[in-house]
């Protein structure tokens, strides 16, 4: 009579150890916790996105995958230079918007923005923008941000001013900051 040596010694089979570990109950708990953490993280905190379009070239390319950190502005307000996601309609307090705009903040609440010969001016002072690689000839009179508004614009300014989606975004529309 042949007997399985593992069974006779009471040790689990090596395949079982690889698949479900030495203690299946503990493995199950770990899997449940891992799934819960992933769901909470990627549904409510780090929102996975896929960039569509060229308005943030060359910083963010078309079809690149990234994440939006929803907790970025938990302790402080958005800052100049931050690349942020801006929602369209409000899907609800915790829901992830289906579509978002990815833009860079160049002016803060109360500041005025103008463009001369393709250069951005904040309150009349030239803004250094090393991330803008495509030159432009934009000219636009000053636009003042309200007390709860941020002026956002893309890094790619190769198209005419009117064809580039930009402007003042309400604070409540800013979902979070791009992670990478």
């Amino acid at each position, binding site marked *: 009579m042949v007997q399985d040596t593992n069974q006779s010694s009471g040790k689990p089979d090596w395949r079982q150890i690889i698949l479900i570990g030495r203690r299946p109950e503990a493995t199950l708990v770990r899997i449940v916790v891992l799934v819960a953490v992933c769901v909470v993280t990627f549904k409510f905190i780090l929102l996975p996105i896929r960039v569509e379009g060229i308005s943030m070239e060359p910083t963010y390319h078309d079809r690149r995958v990234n994440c939006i950190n929803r907790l970025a502005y938990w302790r402080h307000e958005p800052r100049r230079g931050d690349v942020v996601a*801006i929602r369209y309609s409000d899907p609800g307090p915790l829901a992830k918007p*289906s579509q978002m*705009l990815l833009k860079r903040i160049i002016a803060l609440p109360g500041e005025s923005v103008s463009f001369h010969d393709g250069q951005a001016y904040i309150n009349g002072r030239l803004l250094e923008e090393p991330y803008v690689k495509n030159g432009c000839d934009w000219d636009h009179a000053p636009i003042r941000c309200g007390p709860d508004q941020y002026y956002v614009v893309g890094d790619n300014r190769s198209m005419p001013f009117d064809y580039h989606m*930009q*402007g*003042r*975004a309400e604070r409540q529309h800013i979902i979070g900051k791009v992670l990478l």
Partner: protein
Amino acid sequence: MKIASRVALLAILGGLGFWLWTAFFPNPEKIVLGRVSSLAATATINAGDGAITRATKVSNFIGYFSPDAVISYDVTGFGARSLSGLDEIRETAAGGFAGVSSLKVQFQDATARVSPDKQSAEVSCTVRVSAGDSKEFGIQELRLQFKKIAGDWLITRAETVKTLQ
């Protein structure tokens, strides 16, 4: 054990009852959001749709609007325009539906707010329209105002909202 199985059975029956109740007696929010969803399906044109199908779609599309409906839109690169009344909406829809090989309309993140008297509602959503395989007309925030007219929820006003001012 018996008590646990009875409680579980009761919970299942309760859930089923609730589902049946909401399915047979939907609240106004659900009805309005359903109208928005079916409007998107009506406004979507497939490449294989012939002239008769497109004409039928125009007729169905018009059925979502009240006689005095106003559509007001301002799209980056296309400018601002306003359509008033069913005739103007029908004419524009017929031209639009006939002029594209295909059209895909999606209303996303739609939320409805019904007035206390349950006779009017406002829907906020994000509309995404693309024509053909590649031509993207863009994404816009959209506000739709519905009114209950003769038992039917009809759009009295549709307007795009500028997310960036």
